[in-house]
């Protein structure tokens, strides 16, 4: 026990280092493949309201959904989160990115449709201090904390601190929409902008929210019997409803972008509103999630399964050619006199000291149609000038360049295993009457198999994750799945999809490793000694 502890203490520094710098980041990256918090966090009210909506009717959702959308989007726009949401949803339905961007720009205008007439009805509505007095009170502490939490989740910022405002329980009951919008505004003004709430003019969304409340007849009658702060202004507004816009928020949104009225758009939003989604994984196997269930993508968009199979097949070809080329070299290394062997060894190791990019670019010079190899072949007359060999920008180029780059990873384990095979065994076989070939094949080769196993695993796993070399010499049919992963990480920024593709690749490799263990046995792998 004590010894185990001691051993654990000894490996602890390395273990902690690996966990913190390698395993944790990889796991958190892989988690992105199912994570979808951005939708429920950015438009929480809308997501809840949408659960009531039945998409199969083909009708756009109820006005309440649009009201929640307005309240949610307004604060998301303040935090510049609405465009991120648009980008996320654009992965699922083209066009949503610009829809969220342009709508975000006009949210103020929508609020002003209500703000201007309200201020005409009673100029008190222009005053930040008036609003503060009207909305303040007691009993709304729990409400404030809930809104604060939602804002923190939406903006991904710390929202703790003293707001200097508590909504009154009466207002929350009488004007529920207004209380939401004003509380959001108060928290944002106090914590994010570090202003005093009572001195700030409320957001346009607060006026829009009051407009929502005033459409409810119960609210109007409650206002008429209300006697607290701001009563006269509210009663004036309730008495002049005809001066307020006579349309709802659905019309206001559809006016900005007609797609807000499309049931298809809402179906997409609803489909992607849970905080975990299988969408990225389905995407990476050329499937897609639709309101009617899981469907396969149209033929002209299927690419990932092709790339996965191609990656596996080409990695196998590369491994095989590494064995064929590496085995004789390793044998020479192991059997030549020390002095010659070490010179040969330097040649094997030399590529390690050259940058990967330089090596790959050198292959470009050699392989291209006007390149060194073709020139020599044409000069020797083996190839006609008109039909020079196409050696790169296709799968051939990838196999050639990657075999060269990964060759040392095959030779080194082979060499260290062959070094341990006593030459006396082969001599013994021959003295017992075996031919050279039998002695090699029946005696020497079986002993070198662990080296082949180790080298193959190394080469195969490295090959499966390569992307720089295929990108440069692979053209279109010589690129791997890792090229798409790199593209989604650095260009399209669809990290969820990249994570899903990466997870699948990881699982496939682990699966192959398991098969290898079952068939060959992992004990049979030796890196040396």
């Amino acid at each position, binding site marked *: 026990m004590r010894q185990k502890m001691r051993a654990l203490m000894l490996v602890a520094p390395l273990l902690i280092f690996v966990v913190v710098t390698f395993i944790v980041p990889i796991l958190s990256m892989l988690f992105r493949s199912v994570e979808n918090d951005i939708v429920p966090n950015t438009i929480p009210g809308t997501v809840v309201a949408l659960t009531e909506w039945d998409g199969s009717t083909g009708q756009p959702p109820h006005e309440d959904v649009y009201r929640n959308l307005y309240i949610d989007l307004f604060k998301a726009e303040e*935090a*510049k*989160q609405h*465009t*991120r949401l*648009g*980008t996320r949803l*654009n*992965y699922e339905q*083209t*066009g*949503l*990115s*610009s829809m969220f*961007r342009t709508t975000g720009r006009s949210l103020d205008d929508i609020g002003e449709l209500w703000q201007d007439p309200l201020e005409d009805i009673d100029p008190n509505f222009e005053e930040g201090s008036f609003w503060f007095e009207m909305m303040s009170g007691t009993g709304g502490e729990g409400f404030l904390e809930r809104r604060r939490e939602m804002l923190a989740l939406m903006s991904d910022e710390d929202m703790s601190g003293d707001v200097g405002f508590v909504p009154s329980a009466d207002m929350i009951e009488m004007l529920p929409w207004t209380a939401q919008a004003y509380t959001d505004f108060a928290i944002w003004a106090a914590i994010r902008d570090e202003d005093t709430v009572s001195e700030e003019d409320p957001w346009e969304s607060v006026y829009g929210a009051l407009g929502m409340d005033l459409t409810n007849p119960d609210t109007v009658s409650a206002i008429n019997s209300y006697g607290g702060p701001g009563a006269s202004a509210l009663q004036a507004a309730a008495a002049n409803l005809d001066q307020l816009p006579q349309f709802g928020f659905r019309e206001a949104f559809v006016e900005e972008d007609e797609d807000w009225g499309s049931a298809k758009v809402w179906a997409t939003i609803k489909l992607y509103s849970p905080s975990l989604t299988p969408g990225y994984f389905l995407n990476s196997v050329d499937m897609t999630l639709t309101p009617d269930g899981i469907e396969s993508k149209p033929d*002209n*968009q*299927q*690419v990932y399964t*092709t*790339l996965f199979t191609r990656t596996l097949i080409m990695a196998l070809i590369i491994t095989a050619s590494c064995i064929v080329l590496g085995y004789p070299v390793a044998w020479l290394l192991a059997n030549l006199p020390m002095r010659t062997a070490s010179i040969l060894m330097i040649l094997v190791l030399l590529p390690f000291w050259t940058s990967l990019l330089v090596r790959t670019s050198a292959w470009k010079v050699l392989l*291209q*149609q*006007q*390149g060194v190899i073709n020139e020599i072949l044409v000069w020797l007359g083996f190839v006609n000038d008109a039909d020079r060999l196409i050696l790169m*920008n296709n799968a051939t180029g990838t196999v050639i360049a990657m075999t060269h780059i990964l060759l040392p990873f095959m030779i080194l384990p082979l060499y260290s295993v062959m070094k341990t095979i006593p030459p006396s065994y082969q001599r013994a076989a021959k003295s017992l009457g075996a031919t050279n070939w039998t002695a090699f094949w029946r005696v020497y080769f079986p002993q070198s198999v662990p080296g082949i196993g180790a080298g193959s695993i190394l080469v195969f796993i490295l090959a499966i994750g390569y992307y720089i070399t295929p*990108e440069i010499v692979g*053209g*279109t*049919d010589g690129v791997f799945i890792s090229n*798409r992963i790199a593209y989604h*990480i*650095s*260009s*399209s*920024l*669809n990290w969820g999809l990249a994570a899903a593709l990466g997870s699948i690749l990881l699982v496939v490799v682990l699966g192959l490793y398991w098969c290898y263990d079952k068939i060959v046995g992992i004990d049979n792998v030796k890196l040396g000694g």
Partner: protein
Amino acid sequence: MQLIKTLTASTALLVVAGGSAFAQDMASDMTLVSWGGAYQNSQIKAYAEPYMANNPGVSITWDESSNEAVAKMRAMNEANNVTWDLVDVVAADAMRLCDEGLAMEIDANEVLAAAPDGTSAEDDFGDLLVSDCFIPQIVYSTTFGYREDMVPAGTPAPTDICALFDTETYPGMRSLEKRPINNMEWALLCDGVAKDEVYSVLETPEGQQQALDKLATIKDSVIWWSAGADTPQLLADGEVFMGSTYNGRLFSAIVEQDQPIAMLWDAQVFDLDGWIIPAGLPEDRLNRVLDFVKFATDTQRLADQAAYISYGPARFSSAPLVGKHADLGIDMAPHMPTDPANAKNTFLYNYEFWADYRDDIDAKFQAWLAQ
């Protein structure tokens, strides 16, 4: 994070205490991010060196990461450790960074210098301020170059973009960028779609298929590139007859390296490159960056840059000041993509369209490539 804040705060205090001569406290180091190569060199010569001469004691570090700036900025932001002060990106990336809230929104008139004649910065840059976060520097174009010596004898040199698809008249390989943007537009244009209808056609699945079908006619003769340097190399080695790339790359192959290549300006696609300031910089670093940006994007500095590279300055007021190449002494104006003789038929990169359709069309394009 708290520790970093405390550290920066105390550094800022030290700077205030030590350098009370400055009206504002400004950091003395800046990390600028650019593309490397000739382009970054032109920025060093035209902006950074004069700025450092005016402000001794300021040191500038260059990071050649613009290619993956968006991904890196997102990662830095998630780690709450933004180490960059000013980032050079193409306009489409600036829009994405703005959308993601990673770049700071700026008020052009407040942050940027007015033109010498008093025209406000907003009017001087005009339509090129395509995003609230974007400070344009240059107009560049993606256009074609072709090998003059590979034009078949007796055939006139190509003057029309559709020579790209005419492999009978102009045999040989072509090189095109490995992405749908630009290629789809050119394909439709040469398939008989009118220029002002290209994007409305490309919005539809049928239009996208039409463009891919047109590209399929030359698919076997195309080498797809992903780095801007590929096409000049392929042209110089005679691997391809014609290829698309950035006009500045072709300029240096033709003029500086004297290769037998000629420009085909027809249907060139204008795009913009410029600065963005990362969101949430501490005040002292922000002050320094704003000071630098105001200087580096004024009328004279943008015109100076054109002496080192053949990209058009983004200000109207800079155009008349464009002079001669710094080393070769040739007039730069005729090599600018914006020169009237070159700009007879042009496209402007459609940012809104590609922001929406990029993922969708790219999926189809990649599937088509893999077939």
